[in-house]
């Protein structure tokens, strides 16, 4: 559990982060969203003490971060930086293995870990491990930056816009990968983004920042259905709200018995996908399949009823 307790950072009398208090549960993904300059990066950097708070403190599992030497604290916390920050004079393998090396892992264990991570991020280890960062595309550099943060399997991962330079397809795959890795390892992730879609897609909880203040800290569904301020509502976007909400609900929640025409949707799809399928093909219901066997259908009426619950 990470407790952020009335933490404040002041630059020349201006509050970059203004008395933020929040608690992050172990094994969850918390997304910090906000516009540019709202203090997201500063908040994140105070957790691993790259920035010392002007006041307030952070406790990890009850222990104040001030109790550990900063560089030792940072070795325990994975950090993926806004704009990768790879070491240009080290190979991809050495970049990824940087923290394990600091922690004195044996060589063969490090190289096995490097290959595992490259594979995880869809980069062929044989082709990539000996390259230098300058020989990678922007998106590949960014993935290596995330791999470096994950390398030592830290319990806590801080990520500052890790997917910024990725195209939409790779981006959504990287998000899925991150989810999968997080669930498997049970790590706690705090991720900064200014993309509300990413926040809703990835977050167990979403923290919205505005002008250094934490204006709302809630589940994605609450953020969408009950935005605390006009700013949060703007971030969510009026027009997009119903669709964003539907994207959070799996079809399995409203599936009913009965048959429907046309191609089936997988049970893991969202109501937003189901709605799109209905509209696009002019159907009033679509079949839902689980492992290729049709288990029922989702109707347009059911989708509408579910959306209206929040109105």
């Amino acid at each position, binding site marked *: 559990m990470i407790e952020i307790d009335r933490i404040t950072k002041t630059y020349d009398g201006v509050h970059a982060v203004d008395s933020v208090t929040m608690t992050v549960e172990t094994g969850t993904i918390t997304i910090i969203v906000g516009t540019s300059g709202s203090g997201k990066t500063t908040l994140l950097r105070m957790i691993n003490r790259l920035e010392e708070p002007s006041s307030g403190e952070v406790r990890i599992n009850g222990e104040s971060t001030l109790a550990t030497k900063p560089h030792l604290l940072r070795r325990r916390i994975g950090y993926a*930086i806004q704009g990768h*920050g*790879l*070491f240009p*004079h080290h190979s991809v393998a050495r970049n990824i293995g940087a923290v394990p090396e*600091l922690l004195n892992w044996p060589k063969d264990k490090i190289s096995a870990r490097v290959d595992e991570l490259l594979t995880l991020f869809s980069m062929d280890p044989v082709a990539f491990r000996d390259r230098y960062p*300058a020989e990678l595309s922007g998106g590949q550099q960014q993935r290596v930056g995330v791999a470096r943060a994950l390398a030592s399997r830290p319990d806590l991962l801080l990520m500052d816009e890790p997917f910024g330079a990725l195209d939409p397809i790779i981006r959504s795959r990287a998000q899925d990968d991150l989810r999968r890795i997080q669930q498997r390892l049970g790590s706690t992730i705090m991720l900064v983004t200014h993309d509300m879609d990413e926040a809703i897609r990835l977050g167990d909880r979403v923290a919205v920042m505005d002008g250094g203040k934490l204006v709302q800290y809630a589940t994605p569904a609450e953020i969408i259905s009950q935005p605390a301020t006009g700013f949060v509502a703007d971030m969510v976007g009026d027009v997009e709200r119903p669709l964003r909400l539907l994207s959070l609900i799996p079809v399995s929640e409203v599936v009913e018995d009965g048959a429907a025409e046309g191609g089936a949707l997988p049970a893991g799809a969202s109501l937003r996908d189901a709605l799109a399928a209905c509209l696009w093909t002019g159907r009033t219901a679509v079949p839902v399949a689980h492992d290729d066997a049709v288990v029922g259908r989702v109707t347009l009426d059911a989708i509408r009823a579910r959306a209206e619950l929040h109105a």
Partner: protein
Amino acid sequence: MKIGIVLRPALIVLLLALVLRPAWFAPVFAPLAPANGPVIYERASLLSLSLSHLGLVAAATAAATLVAVTLAILVTRPSGAAFRPLSRTIANMGQTFPPVAVLALAVPVLGFGSGPTLVALFLYGLLPIFENAITALSTLPPATMEAARGIGLNRWQKLMRVELPLALPVILTGIRLSVVIALGTATIGSTVAARTLGEVIIAGLLTNNTAYVLQGGLIVGLFAVLIYDALVQLEAHLARRVGG
């Protein structure tokens, strides 16, 4: 590039011949020597003069590098930033002092021989290395520096593993400038009895023997050109490593 492939070995061969087999060049230099005077310098072996010349330059540059880089590291730390202007002023003064004056002042203290020359070359070599090291260490990519702290390197590890390797190509440029200045300046050392190739040039000047002057000048010049070239190659190689 192609020219370099032919020119470089040619210059090396020419230099080796000038140093090891000076007698071969007697016909070339003969027209420049005074009538009936000696054509080829024979009072000392050119090889031993060359080695002593290079040795002085290497020792002075090594010392200057050590001091300049250490100083640059200190004044680019947050705690040393206050000393940066002062240290630059001192390094600049070393540069504005004429080498002849350094020799003249150092002789009474250190006596005749290599000592005063070493001091002069050292003082002269400081500034370019110091300036380049400061520039290199204070313009490192910020995201990389942030990541170095972020992954948990302590200050020493950050310096040794990230800052110095990344700054190396630019520091090397400073060393190259120093070496070339020192190769030329070392010739003046002969006036206070340091064993350098300046001996040949000065002997020529004293006896009106242009052949000597040319011989000495040519060898010093070739050393300078070839060493400069070698260091440029090394820098380019390192810069590629750093992802230039």
